[in-house]
């Protein structure tokens, strides 16, 4: 501890980068000419690579790490600023909502796969379970919508509990196969289930919280604000909750237990760490977060259908972790932004988006095997 005391990294490099990134994201989201977008993406990539070559990324990282709380608040502020700029644009706000909900799901997967090493190739299915739960409950019950979102997470966790016995009894690739089988079964199940609307899915009414209807546009003074702003704020709140949960998990004995069993189950057992117990905790917590996100997404979209929760979507979630840096919460968020925004803005590429993801994952694994933001060594408290 005594070694590097004294000089605490300045907040300035990080703050400057955050400002630039915010402006850049606003520029990307606001651009609609394909050429402009292409140039922006190219420039962004070039700047990151150059910064890496000139060794600028390290000091920036140190600046972020040294002023973590401040940057957490600034990041929230930046998100609000971006939403403020696009307050009238349904499309952009919806894109941001999608991004944040996917990020929550990726954080759920981070607990499972990133920390405890429990592979889950059915992420989209648990997202779907959350969404279908919210659809069924909003249509058939008068439960408050916030309670329904909560139940979406609980239902996803309970559905995941069915998979626990086979997952705990097998390991490695076999556990992966169990989740793949579940993903395929889930899809078939909802496709043939008439109560759940079959292939057409279900429609659900807009969200209401304390009498406030989320599907009405908002007028504040002389500003007309898209109705998606309500969903934006809700999703942001959920993302903050998920991020806080994941970070606290990581910075606790529980995160340590997860790491211990991921890295060496046998050694972990020899020191009393209950392998099955902690795998179960990780799997349930992760699926709960994924289910929360799915429940909100169902309400945002206004309908749920089997084709939204495919095995391919589950693979995207896993590739988000590989891209971002397995086990790094910020990495998961940044990678989600990539994966959601790039194909949405580059229309020419949209049909090839799986090809794009594949190429990105391969490039990252080749040149930066630990992901864009490798996970740092655990610090339980900020120094």
């Amino acid at each position: 501890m005594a070694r590097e005391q004294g000089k605490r990294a300045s907040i300035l490099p990080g703050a400057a980068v955050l400002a630039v990134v915010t402006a850049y994201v606003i520029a990307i989201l606001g651009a609609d000419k394909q050429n402009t977008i292409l140039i922006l993406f190219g420039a962004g990539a070039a700047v990151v690579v150059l910064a890496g070559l000139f060794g600028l990324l390290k000091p920036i990282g140190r600046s972020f790490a040294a002023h973590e709380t401040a940057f957490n608040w600034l990041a929230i502020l930046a998100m609000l600023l971006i939403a403020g700029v696009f307050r009238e644009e349904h499309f952009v706000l919806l894109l941001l909502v999608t991004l944040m909900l996917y990020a929550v799901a990726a954080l759920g997967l981070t607990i499972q796969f990133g920390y405890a090493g429990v592979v889950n190739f059915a992420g989209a299915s648990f997202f779907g379970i959350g969404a279908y739960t919210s659809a069924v409950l909003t249509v058939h019950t008068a439960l408050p919508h916030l309670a329904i979102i909560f139940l979406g997470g609980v239902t996803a966790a309970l559905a995941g509990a069915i998979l626990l016995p086979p997952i705990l009894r097998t390991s490695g690739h076999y556990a992966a196969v169990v989740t793949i089988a579940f993903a395929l079964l889930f899809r078939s199940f909802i496709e043939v289930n008439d109560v759940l609307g079959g292939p057409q899915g279900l429609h659900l009414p807009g969200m209401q919280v304390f009498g406030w209807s989320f599907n009405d546009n908002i007028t504040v003074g002389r500003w007309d604000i898209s109705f998606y702003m309500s969903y934006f704020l809700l999703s942001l709140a959920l993302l903050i909750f998920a991020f806080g949960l994941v970070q606290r998990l990581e910075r606790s004995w529980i995160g340590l237990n997860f790491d211990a069993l991921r890295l060496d189950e046998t050694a972990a057992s020899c020191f009393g760490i209950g392998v099955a117990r902690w795998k179960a905790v990780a799997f349930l917590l992760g699926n709960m977060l994924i289910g929360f996100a799915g429940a909100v997404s169902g309400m945002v979209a206004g309908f749920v259908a089997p084709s939204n929760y495919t095995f391919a979507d589950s693979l995207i979630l896993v590739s988000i972790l590989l891209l971002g840096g397995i086990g790094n919460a910020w990495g998961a968020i940044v990678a989600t932004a990539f994966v959601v925004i790039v194909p949405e803005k580059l229309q020419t590429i949209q049909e090839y988006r799986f090809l794009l993801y594949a190429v990105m994952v391969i490039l990252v694994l080749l040149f930066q095997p630990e992901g864009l933001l490798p996970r740092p060594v655990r610090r339980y408290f900020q120094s």
Partner: protein
Amino acid sequence: MTNVAPAPLLQVEGLTKTFGGVLALDALALSAGSGEVVGLIGPNGSGKTTFFNVTTGIYKPDAGSIVFKGKNLAGASPQTIHRAGISRTFQRSRLSLPLSIFDNIMIGAHTRRFNGLVFNLVCRGAFKHEYERMVEAARALLKVFEPELTDRLFEPVMGLPMIDRRRIEICRALISEPSLLFLDEPSAGMTHEETHALMDNILRVRAVHSSLAIVIVEHQMGVIERITDRCAVLNFGRKIAEGTYREVAGNAEVQEAYLGAEL
């Protein structure tokens, strides 16, 4: 039945383990009393590591009993056995390389930390308190083995030389304050001087917890001679001799088992 002599801390009897056709442990009997240092020696493949693996619950025995503190632990899970007070190191280092020194030691402290969800996630003040106590405990233990490492508690183990990794592994095994410690070739890959220093450190820890019993597997006979109270010699999973190092070293069958290897 009235026992005059107190039962030893660990009493293993008839312990048998086969892997396919290989008889790795053949009705092995071994005991270790409180505060005793027992050497376990024998040629390669004679079943020393298997004895540790079966006694710590990694493998289930085919037959036999493992009575520890009066309870038969044969067939129990590694978790149960560790909670009863047995801790170990591994022949091939099994640290979690991406984790910090502190984290690795804390893996061994699982029984001393509080693992409740609410405590860890919500009661951060109480958690911090416990965390600080644990940092102190890890520092104090590490200081016995290598004071320099106490300043580097939050560096990953990955970059450390083998000797430091061995020390950390021993700290990981000791931090739970076990009653019985299994050391599986703790000095593998070390020079004579380093080995002696390591053994002195282990004995220093034992001086504080004088009831700590140690079973040690070691190929450097000088170490065995110096630190053990008693030795058992294995060959093909069977115990072929037992006694003080001098008695055992003079045994003809033992010399034959080692055939050429000098004792």
